[in-house]
């Protein structure tokens, strides 16, 4: 069963085509990778799904509902969360608070209740702290709870982005180059985390990644973009042997040499 369906998705900036006529389905509970050379339009695709950009043409449906034209915060409430390629943490607030921001829409305290310090808002605040702490434990960052987010190591910052996204309790999690800048050990831990999240949290995961070893290892389905167009789609084995993909990555002529 597909959870996300993209049809004829196109995005143009001032004549520059970033995404051209992209269509595919994402199966519920799957791990799908979107790959392609730099500038292929992968992040633009994520930005359209999360409402940061509005598609020029085409449709994005999640469980039968259209996401086109919705604002990012509405899309977040519908159950899509993401991380960013260029890390976008709330740098000067603490690690725990970063995760608590992700819980925003799951806290119902009203402005008045907070101002009057009603017992219910106090209880909820305690709950938010505990919940955020559990999520930190889940991704393995619990020991850093009181540190400033910007003081974390690069790998830990990427994990914190994931923790923050998990706090919104998404159905679909978009990871934009989660392993970028990580050493092999960190990448291994990340792989485990991604598997664990999918199993335990009932998530559908879509990721953009350049680390082909990681991609081939964890994804069930791969979509290849090049110059804004989808050039191939399939399971890792199919993609590995697809001449078009090899050409896109290695240049013209490479495909024939490789085979």
């Amino acid at each position: 069963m597909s959870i996300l369906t993209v049809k004829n998705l196109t995005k143009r900036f001032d004549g520059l085509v970033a995404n051209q006529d992209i269509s595919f389905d994402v199966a519920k509970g799957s791990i799908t990778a979107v790959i392609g050379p730099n500038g292929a339009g992968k992040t633009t695709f994520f930005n359209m799904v999360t409402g940061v950009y509005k598609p020029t043409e085409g449709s994005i449906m999640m469980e039968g509902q259209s996401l086109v034209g919705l604002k990012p915060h509405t899309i977040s409430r519908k159950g899509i969360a993401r991380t960013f390629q260029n890390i976008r943490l709330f740098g000067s607030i603490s690690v725990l608070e970063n995760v608590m921001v992700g819980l925003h829409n799951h806290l119902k305290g009203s402005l008045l209740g907070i101002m009057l310090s009603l017992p219910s808002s106090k209880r909820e605040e305690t709950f938010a702290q505990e919940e955020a702490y559990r999520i930190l434990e889940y991704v393995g960052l619990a020991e850093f709870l009181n540190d400033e987010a910007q003081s974390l190591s690069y790998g830990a910052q990427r994990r914190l982005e994931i923790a923050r996204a998990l706090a919104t309790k998404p159905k679909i999690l978009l990871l934009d180059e989660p392993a970028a800048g990580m050493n092999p050990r960190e990448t291994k831990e990340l792989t485990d985390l991604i598997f664990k999240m999918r199993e335990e949290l009932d998530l559908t995961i879509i990721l953009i990644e350049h680390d082909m070893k990681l991609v081939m290892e964890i994804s069930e389905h791969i979509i290849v973009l090049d110059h804004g167009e989808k050039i191939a789609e399939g399971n890792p084995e199919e993609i590995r042997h697809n001449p078009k993909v090899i050409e896109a990555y290695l240049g013209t002529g490479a495909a024939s040499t490789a085979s």
Partner: protein
Amino acid sequence: MKKYIDLMKSYTDKVKDNKLAQGILLGTYILVTTLSLYLSGKSVIAFLLLLASLLLLHFTKLGRNTKWGIAALVLVVLLPLSASQGDAYQSYMEVGTLVGIYVAMALGLNIVVGLAGLLDLGFVAFFAVGAYTYSIFATPQAANFLSFGTFPLGGEYFWVFILIGGFVAAIFGILLGIPVLRVKGDYLAIVTLGFGEIIRIVFNNLDRPINITNGAMGLSSITPPKLFGLTFTFPSQFYYIALVILVLTIFVVRRLEYSKIGRAWKAVRENDIAAQSMGIHLVRTKLTAFAIGASFSGMMGVVFAAKQTFVDPTSFTLLESITILVMVLLGGMGSVPGVILGAAIMTILNMQVLTELTNWLNQLSLNNVISIPDALSPAKMQRFIFGAILILFALYRPQGLIPAKNPIFNAAKLKNGSTPKGQEKQKQEVSLKKESASYVNLDS
């Protein structure tokens, strides 16, 4: 020699951790300054030193409730009592009242600038809105455009108008915010600056076609507040009004800062795109900051109008807006204790130090000790001083005198949680699963 230094050091170390020692030292300090103010009657220095005890209090390790208790004792009893002996009583209480008014305003601006990261350069407009809201109805002015009711309203209405003033200012905040908050961040500064000027120009000219604000003439003989037959006319009485509102303001700000709303403000400040994808409604979050900040300013506007018994557009210039901004930057953006300190310093500098200094210099010139041209008199140098503070702090200490601190959470407490230990594991699994029953999204 070294032995003595070590000995001194061990003493200071002891004091650093010893609550009792700190309490005794602070108590002695308060006693001495109170007594000296009481005995000298008119001593600016004693007055300022007594106020400074609150700063010392902030840095002690005493418990929160103890701190509040001591602060209440100093502000409610000791300060007014010891100042009441001299002939400068009312002028000290005037300074005290203004400090209260400006601290509340600065706390309001701190929400907008410090927490939400939106530079508002027309903040005084909301102060003006509050002041005029009360003034129009507390003078015969309202009769010009209302056919019912008798104006001026009695002084009993003042108390309701504190709320009304805050509310009207909040509405203005939202009205300004709706168009403005959609534009890019750095334009906001210039648009709010323009808005501040617009409000002033409008108030200055709204004496026709219908006379609402009485234009440049301003509104005078504003009804003083009344409570149980007691009429408030002296600064020593307004002091308590300002103090009560201020305490409520501090309470509310503290609550908001460590709530989901405060976190949303900080998230928007740190990275608005990430904040949005965490489900935060950008415009609504910014509007809340604008409205709440504006309402503090509006409430104090009402108090200001009642205290002065006269308002005109010249009280609400750009210089005022910048003064409040200086208070926030000087104290520390986003830091409540910092902003309180910053506002107190700036108000006292404005009201007391600059005038005292000017008088002193004039005295010296009169006695031919030195000759200072009138152009350089400190009271006229406000813009220079404010400008210099802004530049120096932005360059060398952008975090302000008392930097903002993130709350510290206790990991052990969070781990054990409010649920019994045995269920912890189970709860973790359940709560991480999406759509768990306890999350009902009321916002959407």
